[in-house]
């Protein structure tokens, strides 16, 4: 995700003479994701949303987000008229916006010689466009326009829009100072391209329709499996009543679907729901994406909201995993542990010797001595599994006393990093 990416939205019209297009654009956007409708579907209460957005809402609340009447995903119907409106609008948007902005400039700079003034910005833009065309692949103006006007990668990209895009002319190439990725044609800032290329999967354009041969040689198309998309129309997945399923059955079900089946039951349920939503929303698309693409989208979900995410409320991340190999862990770090324990002993012995002789100097010495001790103690604790740390460090009382006092004034010790450590404020 490029944080610097400039997302187009309806406010783009506000400082142009075409202010009235802002509400038009808002009405072509989904109220949930605020992006243009993507595979729009209509509910039984006649509200329209992106297929994926409403499916997610229905599976979490069972209610229409707009009017809160109950609905079921089975009752969703595709809304082709809206889809065509969105396609037509997004195609026209860049050129209309350019024109509107040009008119603003011409009008405000000098009202007198409008002709010359409005002419100038336009020709400049043309030049930029020509330069851009000269240096880039010529095959795919449409996709570029589409991705510019639609914003960054959506979870679901309707390939349908590309079909229309193919027939549009070069006038529509946006003059936004951005350049397209040579693989996926997504537009981004010049300096962001190289970083993006490291992670580009080429899925924006490559996955949904076969490319012209000339472009195919450049792209990642060859390593993309098309079988799923081209052979048969995907079938919808039914909603599961999870409470009727045993955990083992659910685990097997996920395996049969070809999606990860690790983690506790609640996580598997959430993962299945997300997969069902991704899958069924894909079924609403004119040109469904291959399964591999959906699996990548599920991976993104896993990283941000599923089992691989670390949210403060997520209890799975604060408890040591069941399959954590503690024997293997302590075996492979055995020498490290022993050395750290020995170091800690030495340090705390030194502190005991320097502080025990009289009671009052303890307080006086603390500021100088404690930082060193704290640091070493903390390292020790954090590297050693709790089970071996406690017995190793506690046997002789003086050590224990010093340890406790130095630890008290330091930050709470971190336990095994990455396994139990939870830095987030719990009272959210």
């Amino acid at each position: 995700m490029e944080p610097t990416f400039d997302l187009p939205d309806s406010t783009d019209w506000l400082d142009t003479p075409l202010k009235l297009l802002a509400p038009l654009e808002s009405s072509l956007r989904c109220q949930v994701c605020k992006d243009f409708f993507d595979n729009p579907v209509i509910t039984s209460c006649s509200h329209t949303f992106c297929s994926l957005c409403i499916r997610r809402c229905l599976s979490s609340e069972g209610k229409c987000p707009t009017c809160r009447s109950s609905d079921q995903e089975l009752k969703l119907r595709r809304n082709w008229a809206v889809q065509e409106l969105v396609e037509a609008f997004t195609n026209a948007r860049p050129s209309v916006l350019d024109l509107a902005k040009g008119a603003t400039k011409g009008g405000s700079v000098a009202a007198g010689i409008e002709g010359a003034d409005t002419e100038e910005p336009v020709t400049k833009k043309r030049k930029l466009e020509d330069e851009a065309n000269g240096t880039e692949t010529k095959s795919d103006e449409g996709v570029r326009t589409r991705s510019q006007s639609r914003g960054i990668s959506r979870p679901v990209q309707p390939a349908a829009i590309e079909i229309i895009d193919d027939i549009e002319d070069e006038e529509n190439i946006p003059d936004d100072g951005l350049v397209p990725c040579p693989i996926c044609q997504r537009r981004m800032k010049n300096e962001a391209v190289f970083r993006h290329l490291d992670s580009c999967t080429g899925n924006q354009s490559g996955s949904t329709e076969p490319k012209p041969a000339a472009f195919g040689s450049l792209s990642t198309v060859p390593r993309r499996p098309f079988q799923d998309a081209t052979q048969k129309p995907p079938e919808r997945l039914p909603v599961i009543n999870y409470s009727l399923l045993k955990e083992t059955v659910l685990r097997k079900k996920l395996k049969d679907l070809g999606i990860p089946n690790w983690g506790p039951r609640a996580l598997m349920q959430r993962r299945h729901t997300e997969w069902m939503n991704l899958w069924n929303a894909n079924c609403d698309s004119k040109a469904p994406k291959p399964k591999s693409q959906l699996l990548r989208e599920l991976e993104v979900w896993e990283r941000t909201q599923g089992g691989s995410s670390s949210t403060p409320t997520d209890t799975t991340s604060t408890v040591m995993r069941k399959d954590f190999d503690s024997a293997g862990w302590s075996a492979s770090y055995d020498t490290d542990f022993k050395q750290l324990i020995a170091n800690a002993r030495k340090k705390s012995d030194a502190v005991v010797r320097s502080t025990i002789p009289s009671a009052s100097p303890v307080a006086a010495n603390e500021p100088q001595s404690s930082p060193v001790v704290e640091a070493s103690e903390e390292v020790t604790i954090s590297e050693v599994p709790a089970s071996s740390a406690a017995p190793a460090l506690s046997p002789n009382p003086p050590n224990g006393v010093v340890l406790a006092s130095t630890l008290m004034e330091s930050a709470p010790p971190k336990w095994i990093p990455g396994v139990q450590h939870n830095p987030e404020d719990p009272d959210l």
Partner: protein
Amino acid sequence: MSSMTQNRLFREYKTLSENPPDGITAGPVSEDDMFHWEALIQGPEGTPYEGGVFAAELKFPKDYPLSPPTMKFVGGGVWHPNVYPNGTVCISILHPPGDDPNHYEHASERWSPIQSVEKILISVMSMLAEPNDESPANVEAAKMWRERRAEYEKKVREEVRKGLGL
């Protein structure tokens, strides 16, 4: 989903900064973390909060907009029946429809994915103007508001003045 969440937050940020409602400013604390915002709300005119500027922080869950953000006034909290003494705002638009421990809110007033930061902040502004004492977050403030309105208003004005460093 995460890219959807971030895109949506980014769009809301853009809309708020290009077309802000009167008396409201809001945006992410840093553009690296779209899930943590800061907002400034002006005290509504004609209320004891008039003249005050109230800072709040908003924290968004990873599944926003399916779940609502939380909102908390920072820097001393706000003396108000619907604001907890620690500053956390308690209004219906911030509560998911599924959970209504107090049984006094209409489902239609509560969070839904079509709500937005802008609507939350506008609701909070009108909450400052018209407290709801049915299920107060700050019982003391609610009692004072109901029974000793003059004292309540005086206290609020003092807090506002203190907040401005006067």
